[in-house]
């Protein structure tokens, strides 16, 4: 029951009351975390929320660069969502990209060929969806920094790939949700890559440790920045929101600073 209730994250993303059209339709969401505070749980929550029975037309195409399906299946099962069943229903497509990290074929040496065929796979998957679901696909990438590794360090290939995913958001109304780590982009060259991604982004979710240091009951804070608020008519007026969170075994608690001791 608890997870059905409206939480602060859903509210900040505008997922609250309206599910049709899907509020994240055509938008790009970036979850940014750091070593001290992992943002994976946001991805899990969004995955669960996207596949929930409230929005039966949604489909998820999951590009896993960091963990295999069994890992996500275990976590999502605890959250009350059966990924294997969803996959059989044709609502969840899992692309195991762990192998892309060490491509065997010669033409994929530079990583570029791999991304082109990956994009083709995504496009064909969306094309093959039933008519009702075509405009409700969500592409999720679980670790953008590992994409760069897959591209053998060429951030340009990653940006090309992201650009093509972005064209899917505007042409077919897909949404794109990615996770990235902030603290590995410190030098100028690498910073430019991250900034370039940020210019694509409509919603930025930042997971950080508390500014005041460690606390037993608070695991960190989330800041949701809705940059893309100008592009969507009648979107929520929450342009920016900040709240604390506590990750529990089968749910996450969100609360405003100061409302919990």
């Amino acid at each position, binding site marked *: 029951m608890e997870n059905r209730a409206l939480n602060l994250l859903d509210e900040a993303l505008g997922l609250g009351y309206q599910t049709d059209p899907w509020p994240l339709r055509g938008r790009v969401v970036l979850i940014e975390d750091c070593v001290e505070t992992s943002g994976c749980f946001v991805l899990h929550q969004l995955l669960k929320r996207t596949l929930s029975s409230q929005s039966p037309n949604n489909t998820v195409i999951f590009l896993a660069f960091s963990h295999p399906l069994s890992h996500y299946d275990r976590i999502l099962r605890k959250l009350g969502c059966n990924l294997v069943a969803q996959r059989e229903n044709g609502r969840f497509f899992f692309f195991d990209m762990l192998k892309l990290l060490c491509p065997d074929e010669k033409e994929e040496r530079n990583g570029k060929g791999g991304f*082109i065929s990956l*994009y*083709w796979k995504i*496009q*064909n998957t969306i*094309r093959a969806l039933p008519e009702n679901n075509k405009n409700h696909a969500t592409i999720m990438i679980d670790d953008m920094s590992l994409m760069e590794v897959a591209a053998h360090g060429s951030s*340009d290939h990653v*940006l*090309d790939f992201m*650009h*093509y995913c972005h*064209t899917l958001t*505007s*042409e*077919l109304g897909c949404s794109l949700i990615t996770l990235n780590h*902030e603290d590995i982009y410190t030098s*100028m060259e690498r910073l*430019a890559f991250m*900034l*370039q991604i*940020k*210019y694509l982004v409509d919603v930025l979710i*930042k997971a*950080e440790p508390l*500014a005041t240091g460690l606390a037993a009951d608070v695991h960190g804070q989330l*800041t949701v*920045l809705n*940059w893309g*608020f*100008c*592009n969507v*008519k*009648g979107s929520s*007026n929450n*342009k*920016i929101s*900040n709240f604390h969170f506590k990750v529990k075994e089968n749910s996450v608690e969100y609360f405003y600073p100061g409302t919990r001791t």
Partner: protein
Amino acid sequence: MAESMCRTLRDGSLEGEQAPALTIKDITASPFGFHVFSHVLSQLSSFILASKSQSRGIVIVAFSRSPSFYVDLLKRRGIDVNSSHKWIQILDCYSDPLGWKYQLMGSGNCMDVSHETPSNLSRVCKDVKDLDKLYSMILELGKGLVGQGKDRFSVAIDSVNEMLRHASTPTVAGLLSNLRSHEQISSIFWLLHSDLHEVKVTSALEYLSSVVASVEPLHQTAGGKRGDLENLSLLEQNIGKGKLQVRFKRRNGRVRVVNEGFHIDQSNSNFTSVLSEDGLVNQINQSLLPKVQFDLELSEKERIDRAKVVLPFEHQGNGEPIHIYDGRRSLTESKTEATLSSSGNSQKTDSGEGEIIYFRDSDDEMPDSDEDPDDDLDI
């Protein structure tokens, strides 16, 4: 100075001169460059439609948004895109910049592109790395609008960053410079996210332009990105608002810098200049003043108080009898003086008006008047 920016583009180029070029640049702290870009675009479009501008048509080189986005944008602002007179063309470098989709189509898996705009408005460029081809495509589209004659057209490029990602700085600068020098191009403007490149790249592009409009956050934070998020209220103030600094470079080398604030309307992403808004102007003025230890500005209360002060002889000529204080208290004055002395001087401050209290030491002293003191004597 959004308006004069648009006017510069509207007026176009003189015979034998390079076309005026506008760089719109922004940074992640205030990423509203695209809003400025679309404002300029729609202004220029309405000028073209009303035949008020030198250019007769516009070619949009779309790198970061789809052609249908631009068609929607212009329609939303009440600009007739499908008018009988053909005036707009979009070079689509967004949908398939590297030909991936084309290759997929070639392999037999055709994708229906039902969401695309009618092809008479846009044309897809499948290889953005080839800037020579891009140049000739821009010219081809422009000439398709205005013909081969003397008529001119404008060019809008929505992301130079994408160009710089696919090609080197000298080739991109070469393309822009070639476009500027082309005799049929009336004006050109482009958008640049300046923090994605080194300073030298940004300045190289600024040298190419006659007007540089840079979007800056209203409130600068000293710290890095992390500091930004820690200071949430600052960040909130910077959302939807900003400062636009426009640098005009005249032909004779004179440079004029104008500051202006703007805010973006939430409902229809309008770009509104708020030069009249006092707070903003004060803020900008203050940033222009040299840093001094003491306060040179008057507060609002001080300004009102100053306005209330009646200067000597100021009342003269407005119908009231002219009083010139002669140092002797008149009868009425001595009455008020009597009440005053009984209730103490503190009351005097409540009247809100200043008064000079002066007692003549002796009758020998000359009164403060230029009339003859012995005038009434009957000698």
